[in-house]
């Protein structure tokens, strides 16, 4: 049988990185093919080449046995290939139908748009594949899961036979992800072919027929999912044995360090994002805040550092009310913060590593009335940091933006830890990091906890919350659904709470 898609010997270089190193990939018709690898393994590059967003340096693409020179996305679409990126490309004020037909230019059709006809075929398509969405709804009113369905409909409407999905579950709740998998299954049963990029092993095991593992730009192996297991896949992915469960003993929690009382916060557009949150974090424990991205976590963290105005409520750190003191004083009150966006918020890309290690604390490295920066002192501090946290390369004058995500995170986390805070607020600490860096960052957090620091961990990765937390709070639309001890945590229950069910309303709640 001729494979539906065959990539032969694809090579692609970006400056000094060989993003795709002579990669072969073949995908059969009607299969769900997972492309598994760490960040930076070259998965997205390979798919961008297939979709015509990047052009290969070398190699050949065959679609149904035909040599195809795909140079632009329109070439790909003409061949029945469609791709959904992590960031959706929809126009919020437009309706679902308008979004689906936008840019579509049927030859020989009348110049007038027949939206009703389009809406009817969208309806038919969505019923056929279980893609529930109202064709007349405006996209801005849809949930993330629904938006994703619109993206899929867009592709189906263009008669795409091959669907490429780039990390489709990153933005979904566990339940929404379940729904997506059902849709994919139904599509595959109807002769659609699906390639989906992921770095999550359980998804591969759950949904795919075959899986190709990529590492350092190379395709390491292609396996039948049924005849493999997560451990084997992880080894191929990382090239070594991975610690899945960091051996974690529960923390010894001491006195209350952070006390949040009935906090209310708005986001930039005035939307009431945090609605009466009360929590407490004790020394020597990690309190995990679980929840789907965008349910008020970032606003909560920013309000804690007084980077965002507080509408109502109090924040007490070490028995001192810090609700209204300026953000620079928060650090002297023993608070430290690792923001979610380490590239744009946690660091300054065009500034050297050394100068980034003093961000937020420059007065500490200055003399003459906090005026003149002591270069020597900065260098010593930076040297100590890169040494202690193993930042590579050990080049203090390098622009921080040129560090890899993992090394940049070491700089940001190291900077915050080195001031020995009594409270550390960490947001999405391992987002976008590869397995090795993730493990490193997590171990650092546990070490910090054992040193007696109170850690408030905010993460959209449930697996991370479970791996690190001593207690888990679940947030939904700015409200805390419940707080549970991690040794009593049940994934299904947390999933339900992430979707808006309160702890006391859970079925089987005592």
């Amino acid at each position: 049988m001729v494979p539906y898609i065959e990539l032969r010997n694809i090579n692609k270089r970006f400056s000094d990185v060989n993003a795709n190193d002579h990669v072969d990939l073949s995908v059969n018709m009607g299969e769900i093919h997972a492309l598994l690898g760490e960040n930076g393994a070259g998965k997205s590059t390979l798919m961008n080449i297939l979709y015509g967003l990047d052009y290969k340096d070398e190699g050949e693409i065959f679609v149904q046995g035909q040599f195809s020179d795909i140079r632009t996305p329109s070439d790909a679409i003409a061949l029945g290939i469609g791709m959904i990126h992590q960031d959706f490309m929809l126009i919020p004020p437009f309706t679902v139908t308008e979004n689906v037909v936008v840019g579509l230019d049927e030859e020989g059709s009348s110049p007038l748009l027949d939206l009703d006809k389009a809406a009817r075929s969208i309806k038919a398509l969505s019923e056929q594949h279980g893609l529930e969405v109202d064709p007349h709804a405006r996209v801005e009113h849809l949930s993330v899961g629904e938006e994703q369905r619109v993206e899929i409909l867009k592709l189906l409407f263009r008669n795409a036979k091959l669907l490429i999905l780039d990390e489709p579950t990153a933005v979904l709740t566990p339940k929404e992800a379940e729904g997506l998998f059902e849709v994919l299954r139904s599509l595959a049963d109807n002769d659609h072919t699906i390639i989906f990029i992921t770095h999550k092993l359980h998804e591969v095991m759950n949904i795919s027929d075959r899986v190709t593992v990529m590492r350092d730009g190379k395709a390491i192996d292609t396996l039948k999912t049924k005849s493999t297991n997560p451990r084997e896949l992880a080894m191929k992915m990382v090239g070594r044995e991975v610690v899945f469960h960091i051996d974690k003993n529960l923390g010894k929690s001491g006195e209350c360090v952070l006390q949040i009382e009935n906090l209310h916060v708005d986001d930039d557009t005035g939307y009431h994002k945090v609605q009466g949150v009360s929590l407490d974090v004790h020394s020597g424990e990690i309190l995990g805040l679980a929840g789907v991205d965008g349910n008020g976590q970032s606003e909560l963290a920013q309000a804690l550092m007084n980077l965002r105005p507080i509408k109502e409520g109090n924040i007490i750190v070490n028995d001192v009310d810090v609700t209204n003191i300026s953000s620079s004083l928060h650090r002297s009150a023993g608070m430290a913060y690792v923001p979610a966006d380490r590239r744009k918020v946690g660091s300054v890309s065009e500034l050297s590593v050394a100068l980034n290690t003093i961000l937020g604390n420059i007065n500490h490295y200055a003399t003459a009335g906090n005026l003149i920066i002591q270069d020597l002192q900065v260098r010593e501090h930076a040297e100590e940091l890169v040494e202690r946290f193993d930042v590579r390369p050990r080049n203090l004058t390098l622009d921080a933006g040129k560090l890899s995500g993992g090394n940049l995170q070491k700089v940001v986390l190291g900077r915050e830890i080195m001031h020995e805070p009594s409270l550390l607020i960490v947001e999405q600490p391992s987002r976008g990091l590869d397995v090795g860096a993730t493990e490193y960052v997590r171990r650092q957090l546990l070490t910090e906890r054992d040193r007696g620091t109170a850690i408030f961990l905010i993460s959209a990765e449930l697996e991370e919350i479970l791996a690190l937390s001593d207690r888990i709070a679940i947030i939904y639309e700015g409200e805390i659904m419940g707080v549970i001890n991690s040794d009593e945590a049940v994934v299904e229950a947390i999933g339900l709470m992430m979707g808006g069910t309160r702890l006391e309303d859970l079925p089987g709640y005592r």
Partner: protein
Amino acid sequence: MMSKASFLERRQTPKESSSVTIFITALAIILALLFGSLLFLPFGVDPFKAYSTMVEMSFGTLRGIGYTLIKATPLIFVGLGTIFAWRSGFFYLGFEGTILIGAAAAVWIALLTDPEGAIGPLPRLLFLLLVFLVSFVAGGIWAGIVGVMRGKFGGNEVILSLMMNFVALFLVNYLVSGPLRAPGDLPQTPRIPQATILDFIIPGTRAHSGILLALFAAIVVWFVLRKTTIGYKQIVAGLSPSAAWYGGINVGNRVILAAFIGGGLGALAGMVEVLGVHFRLLDGLGEGTGFIGIVAALLGKLHSIGVVIASILYAGMEVGADVMQRRSGVPSSVIFVIQSLIVLFILASDILRYYRINLSKLFGNDRGKKTLEVDSST
């Protein structure tokens, strides 16, 4: 898709060393001069002889050097103002206005120290200190208005500062035809007292001590931006407002400070012009210096030393152009076209840091197969 500019090949890593920058910049200047030489042909003048005369006139004689330094001084001040403001993320374009405000303030103080003025003669050092402060603060407040608009209310500094230039222009217009007007036909103020004029520093030339102040200011700006917490905060606020916000730096206040210092430096350009060259306030004082200084800052890559070099070179060309017009009848506009060509070529030459030129493709021999080999070997 590939056919577009295919003689340019992307470099795997951009060239960033300073030797490459100097080489590319020199190449750009030479190319601009070659292109510009075409403009001399209608006048029957040998372009290369014209160029060498120009260099001789502006840098080859003491007199020429004097003129060049005079022209360079305000450019350096404006360039430094640009560095401080732009590096803080405040894209101020109102230096033309601050020059006028600074000049007006300086003339006003100078006239007050006339023996018959309100203050009367002051000791020289005290006068210089006073005129410096008043001029700087006046320009700082002038630009600071735009800074507050942007920093506190989110206004657009580009449009606001351009509009403020007109306000300054007509303000000076009003001053010289009204309150400060000297008796006589011309719309200008009286000449400032002899005691308030800047010292000449090179015998036999009109070069004045303003250049020393400019060079000193260049060192101060470098020091503040590089070595102090103020500079650190300014630069972080300019590079990444969100990181600044995270680091507890108030971006709005940084913008206002950037406006104040930038405007103050721009005002000093006006001060040295009136105290060192014109000795009075008159219409048409700026003559585009406020914009050319920004160009000099950009050519100098927003570094203090770069600005000094770019300003002196630019000033040299202007002096050379003047002389040439008088000597050989080639209009100085030819030189201004060449100046602009140089700026364009230098700004465009940046592309060579990211791309290399494939000569065989440029000249079209052996298309196709050979190209592929070259592509894949990179």
